[in-house]
């Protein structure tokens, strides 16, 4: 046990799984870096240094730098997974999914179904998402709702270094294609992470706070924001449950519904654009399955329906924040339910 950053936790998960299982290989743009130029080995270790140091231990046979052609290497990774390897492919920014859509949605996600269960596709795609990095509209999106929409894919969004290590090892050991989302503003966050390998199962939400008044469901980086709000409001006598679903596919519906049955109030926090995102999905679930428990209208805290702005001032206004979550929690607390005669 020692303090590790989100970046170190992911690196350690990759390293330990590569040691454990020779079928695990890494591929992607600059996962080693240096384009094989003399003296340039491991120049990058990924665009933000997450895979740095792995080349020295595992060599070019298992750390595969690819050309800038996502369609080719994501497709190659899907094929390698179907034929016996357990590749971890890095789609540098999830915003680039457009150029390898077919390989993920029509190929990897469908193999198990189309081949009648005879094919497995133990493919993990690591990808960066999220705003706050001043990287503008083509490098800042939260596109996990699109992957969540597709049957056959598992979608994992860790909220802390501890969660990242356990969920990534689980992803690599899983026999289905997994899209693993890393928020680029979280790489330097630190917490206690065990040195040993461990797994966190999919489809089991984590309750990071437990309270009686409001259920806050938050995704990825938003979990820490929700925790801050829960801690701040506790002093005022407003007690919040914070649910981190960990995986949006599969989604732990039961934990969300049980909590709303207890609190009667729901705030969903999702950094993605507001239409057809996790906030709307979870709100619809609760509206349909727990309507009679609700004591106030559901509130969603999301980004607006607009591309992520490049202006730093505008981007700060654009993103969900603890202040916006607090406003939503106060709103559901203040709502006066109509008394039924």
């Amino acid at each position: 046990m020692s303090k590790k950053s989100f970046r170190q936790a992911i690196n350690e998960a990759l390293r330990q799984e590569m040691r454990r299982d020779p079928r695990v290989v890494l591929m992607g743009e600059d996962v080693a870096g240096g384009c094989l130029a003399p003296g340039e080995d491991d120049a990058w270790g990924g665009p933000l240094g997450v895979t740095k140091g792995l080349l020295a231990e595992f060599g070019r046979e298992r750390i595969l730098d690819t050309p800038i052609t996502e369609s080719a290497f994501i497709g190659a990774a899907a094929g390698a997974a179907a034929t016996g390897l357990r590749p971890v492919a890095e789609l540098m920014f999830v915003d680039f999914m457009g150029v390898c859509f077919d390989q993920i949605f029509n190929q990897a996600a469908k193999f198990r179904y189309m081949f009648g269960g005879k094919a497995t596709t133990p493919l993990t795609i690591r990808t960066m998402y999220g705003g706050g990095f001043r990287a503008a509209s083509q490098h800042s999106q939260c596109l996990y709702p699109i992957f969540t929409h597709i049957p056959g894919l598992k979608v994992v969004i860790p909220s802390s270094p501890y969660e990242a290590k356990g969920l990534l090892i689980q992803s690599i050991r899983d026999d289905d294609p997994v899209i693993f989302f890393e928020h680029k503003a979280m790489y330097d966050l630190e917490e206690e992470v065990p040195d040993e390998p461990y797994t966190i199962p999919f489809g089991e939400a984590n309750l990071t706070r437990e309270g009686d008044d409001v259920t806050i469901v938050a995704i990825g980086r938003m979990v820490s924001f929700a925790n801050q709000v829960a801690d701040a409001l506790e002093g005022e006598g407003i007690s919040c449950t914070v649910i981190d679903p960990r995986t949006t596919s599969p989604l732990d519906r039961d934990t969300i519904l049980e909590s709303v049955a207890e609190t009667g109030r729901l705030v969903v926090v999702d950094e993605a654009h507001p239409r057809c995102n996790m906030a709307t999905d979870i709100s619809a679930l609760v509206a349909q399955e727990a309507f009679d428990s609700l004591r106030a209208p559901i509130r969603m805290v999301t980004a607006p329906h607009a591309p992520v702005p490049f202006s730093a001032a505008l981007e700060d206004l654009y993103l969900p924040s603890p202040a916006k979550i607090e406003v939503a929690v106060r709103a559901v607390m203040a709502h006066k339910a109509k008394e039924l005669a």
Partner: protein
Amino acid sequence: MAAITPITMPKFGLAMTEGKVASWAIPEGTRIAQGDELADIETTKITNAYESPVAGVLRRHVAAEQVDLPVGALIAVVADEAVLDTEIDAFVARFQAEFAEKQSAAVVEAAPEPQKVAAGGWTIRYLAMGDPGSDPGGPVVLIHGFGGDLNSWLFTQPVLAERHRAIALDLPGHGGSSKNVGSGDLETLAQALVDFLAALEIPKAHLVGHSLGGAIALYVALHHPAHVASLTLIAPAGFGGEIDGAFIDGFIAANRRKPMQEVLEKLFANPALVSRDMIEDVLKFKRLDGAVPALAAIAAANFGGGRQAQLPRDRLGEIAVPAQVIWGAEDRIIPAGHARGLPPNVPVYVLPGAGHMPHMEKAAEVNRLIAALLPG
């Protein structure tokens, strides 16, 4: 000027950075003896009665109930009646100013960190506290039970370490130690303990074992008597056939918070002691590669079919060193009745209001009993 003693927020366990006075047990102005219960101190992990380290009059509650304070913060003042209120005011003001300065300068006393050592075929994680030179007769070694780890001794180890060297370890299969447990039987686990003592160059130790750790301690005392200076066995396994097999099976099977909470509540006379953090820590341990198979192997070897397989108790009479047995009267895992009919040289202390974890529920009494068996 008569002595004024500050009472400060204690530190229970490695992770505690702050705590709060859940409730004061004694009003201001009461004369207290050393060891009187002052307050319930609540942390995110557990609530524990805090006893006065000194005698005197509890002159001032400095900490309000239910307010979070950092470890080391002033919570109360003890002084004789002769001390003027104005002197106490001045003392509190001075303490608070110095404490604030210390906090801002981040001069925090370095807490001891767990270490790892290669022992036999295992890597064993352990936490050593207290002065290495303080115990020529050998240190105290604390051995947790099934599913526990070195943090099980959070209320015991720091207290013993005030006067002795106290070492808590993670057994194989547990905490941060290797998850390889071989057959998982007492002989294997006892060998790991002997190898651990050898790795730390400890020729002889005072063994304190809880539950499965108690059976291991007794096994070592029987088979490697040269290594053992005394024995304190707390709710030990190996004293009778009965054990709550549903607890063992449930502990191995539970992988979510709610079922794990139900299992852990069986450990305590007061189930409210089971906190979120306690549950989360157990779940985190069980997620480690190899942890659940190790627990299953140990359970099968020692508690298969809901019965205890090995009963070293039958040879308790052969123990030549000082030994004692402590049990919680309300133990729902291993009945306290197992302590009946022991040889006369082994005193038995059955503590009311405690379940299977008397060293957590009645920490002060258990600490006193352990200390009484140690030299000095």
